[in-house]
């Protein structure tokens, strides 16, 4: 079988740029020439980095769907407990931007027990066609059933783009759909646009905990699928004036559920729902003692925000895991993120770096958190945090 990636001997000048960008230690210089070893995963980082076009990936893509027969932008209208998930408004915002370049209609797949009102709401936000299936057998937390329906609808309706939320449900449902209909799926995108030349969806996402960004295309398969990171794209506002939209009621057989919901246990919303919070105050090891989390809670309360934590604080048992922000915790995108006594380790940054405004409070001026902070106070959090709460409360 031919090597999928190779170095063009005549073009390589032995500059070593490829070695620097490879995260897998798969390139070395032999006689001033780049050589790939078996560690190579064909990720393509070196291809992007090479200034001499000396590394090429040769793909022989397996034949995808008949690309021409697919058209339009479809979104997944995730809903739960009788309401659309907040990420849906963000995806509509993204879809409306894409519509400007693509000039195709926006549709939405809406599944659930009582969803009719949501269909009207989707239309008021600019969705042109709602593909709705109302059935009490669908259930809120059964991705196997939902994926089966979504796949059938996509194969029947053939949109060229399908977007879902980068939520826990979205990131469980869409991979299943992609595996069913054999198309590409890009996870947790932070930017979407249409390529001017070939009208393909350019999907940009962070990888390696946000340290690198990758732009991904899916050219021979349809639909081009992506999940969209929550709270990065701007939520759409309802359209001004009435909008002509159609609701198509669909009916497909619903699979027999193999996974059954016993109960849903909500978490105390005001302190924990980090994914949705606009303001977050987080505490780390600098707090020294679990009882000092009350300072963080005090400030969070003063600004009407949620409480987050670094892994060090969680591992020390100062606060439950559900508060952890970072690579192994939650990814958050609030308007403002206040990090108190958190050093800013790369794994922590992975979860909060895309916050609109980052404020750091740390007594060590060289703490890495100050490299990403928009504002910072060098000082002891024991003085700064109560003072902030006091001044905010006025």
């Amino acid at each position, binding site marked *: *079988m031919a*090597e*999928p*990636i190779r170095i063009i001997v005549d073009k390589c000048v032995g500059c070593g740029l490829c070695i*620097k*960008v490879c*995260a897998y*230690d798969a390139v070395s210089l032999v006689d001033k020439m780049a050589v790939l070893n078996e*560690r190579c*995963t064909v*990720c393509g*980082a070196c291809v*992007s980095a090479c200034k001499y076009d000396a590394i090429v990936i040769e*793909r022989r*893509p397996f034949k995808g769907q008949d690309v021409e027969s697919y058209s339009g932008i479809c979104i997944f209208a995730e809903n739960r407990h009788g309401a659309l998930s907040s990420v849906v408004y963000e995806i509509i915002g993204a879809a409306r931007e894409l519509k400007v370049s693509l000039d195709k209609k926006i549709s939405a797949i809406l599944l659930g027990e009582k969803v009719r009102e949501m269909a009207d709401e989707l239309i008021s936000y600019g969705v042109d066609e709602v593909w709705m299936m109302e059935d009490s057998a669908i259930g809120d*937390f059964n*991705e*196997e059933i939902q994926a089966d329906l979504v796949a059938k609808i996509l194969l029947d309706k053939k949109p060229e783009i399908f977007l879902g939320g980068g939520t*826990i449900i979205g*990131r*469980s*449902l869409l*991979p299943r759909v*992609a*595996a069913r209909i*054999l198309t*590409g*799926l890009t*996870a947790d995108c932070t930017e979407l646009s249409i390529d001017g030349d070939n009208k393909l969806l350019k999907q940009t996402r962070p*990888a*390696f*905990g*946000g*340290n*690198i*960004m*990758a*732009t991904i295309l899916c050219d021979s398969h349809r639909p081009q699928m992506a999940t969209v990171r929550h709270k990065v794209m701007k939520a759409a506002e309802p359209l001004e004036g009435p909008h002509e939209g159609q609701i198509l009621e669909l009916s497909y057989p619903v699979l027999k559920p193999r*996974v*059954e*919901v*016993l109960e849903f246990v909500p*978490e105390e919303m005001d302190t924990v729902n980090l994914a949705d919070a*606009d*303001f977050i105050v987080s505490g780390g090891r600098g707090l020294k003692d679990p009882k000092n989390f009350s300072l963080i809670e005090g400030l969070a309360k003063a*600004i009407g925000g949620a409480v987050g934590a670094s892994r060090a604080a969680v591992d020390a048992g100062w606060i439950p895991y559900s508060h952890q922000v970072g*690579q192994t915790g939650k990814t958050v995108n609030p308007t*403002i993120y206040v990090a108190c006594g958190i050093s800013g380790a*790369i794994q922590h940054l992975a979860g909060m770096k895309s916050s609109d*405004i980052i404020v*750091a409070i740390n007594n060590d*001026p060289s703490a890495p958190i100050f490299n990403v*902070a928009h*504002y*910072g*106070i*060098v*000082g002891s959090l024991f003085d700064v945090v109560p003072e902030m709460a006091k*001044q*905010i409360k006025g």
Partner: protein
Amino acid sequence: MKIVVCIKQVPDTTNVRINPETNTLMREGVESIINPFDMYALEEGIRLKEKHGGTVIVLSMGPPQVESALRDALSLGVDEAILLSDRAFAGADTLATAYTLARGIKKVGKVDVILMGRQAIDGDTGQVGPGVAENLGLPHVTEIRMIEGIEDDGTIIVERLLEDGYVRLKSKLPIVLTVVKEINEPRLPSLKGKMAAKKAEIPSWNHEDIEFDLQRIGLTGSPTQVMKIFTPPKPSGGKIFEGDVQQAVTSLLAELREAGIPIGQQREEGSRNG
């Protein structure tokens, strides 16, 4: 009970630093480790076996050096390890990876529980678990924070983390589960385990050992293509206040309000809707 745990070898990003000048990854001295989430999957697999009996088989797709990750897994008390390795698998995206792993699991035979990590820390996608389930025609549940128990009649009860709480779910086996950190505390390898791991035979399967649709593996079977990889723009450096605390706080809040952040002004509004 037969349990398969899928693990991925990844670069240890804990040691990855960013070169502040070029804003690129500095990889010097970065080792390869088992994806941290997969350590929890391994631990949970071993615990299930300890409780219900049976075998735990660890499976990984990757280049030949992944064998070292499989030996690490064996040293924890896993019974068997299988490597899926072939140049033809290289360049697989999540679709092709899920297909390849599923074919490997199929060859293993009748399996009751397939455990995987919530996501791999290199790609951060979390797509492979649900993809494997679909390929095998099995149900799946992601973000498992607890396996409450498995009954003799082959039903499993799990707790799944959600953004706003958790759900308790019941399913028939076999099932694919992806786990979060909260689920357990992984053990350390024992001396005996390390010795056994050293001696263990690890079969390596390639595209000839398993029936693969050659159109669906590796780069060929991957619909997504990376068009460009770049480093995010360097942070421009923020405004830092020092000195008198009261003054610093006042200046900070003034800046925030100037930047249009309604800090402290929306307390009475209550929670946001939508």
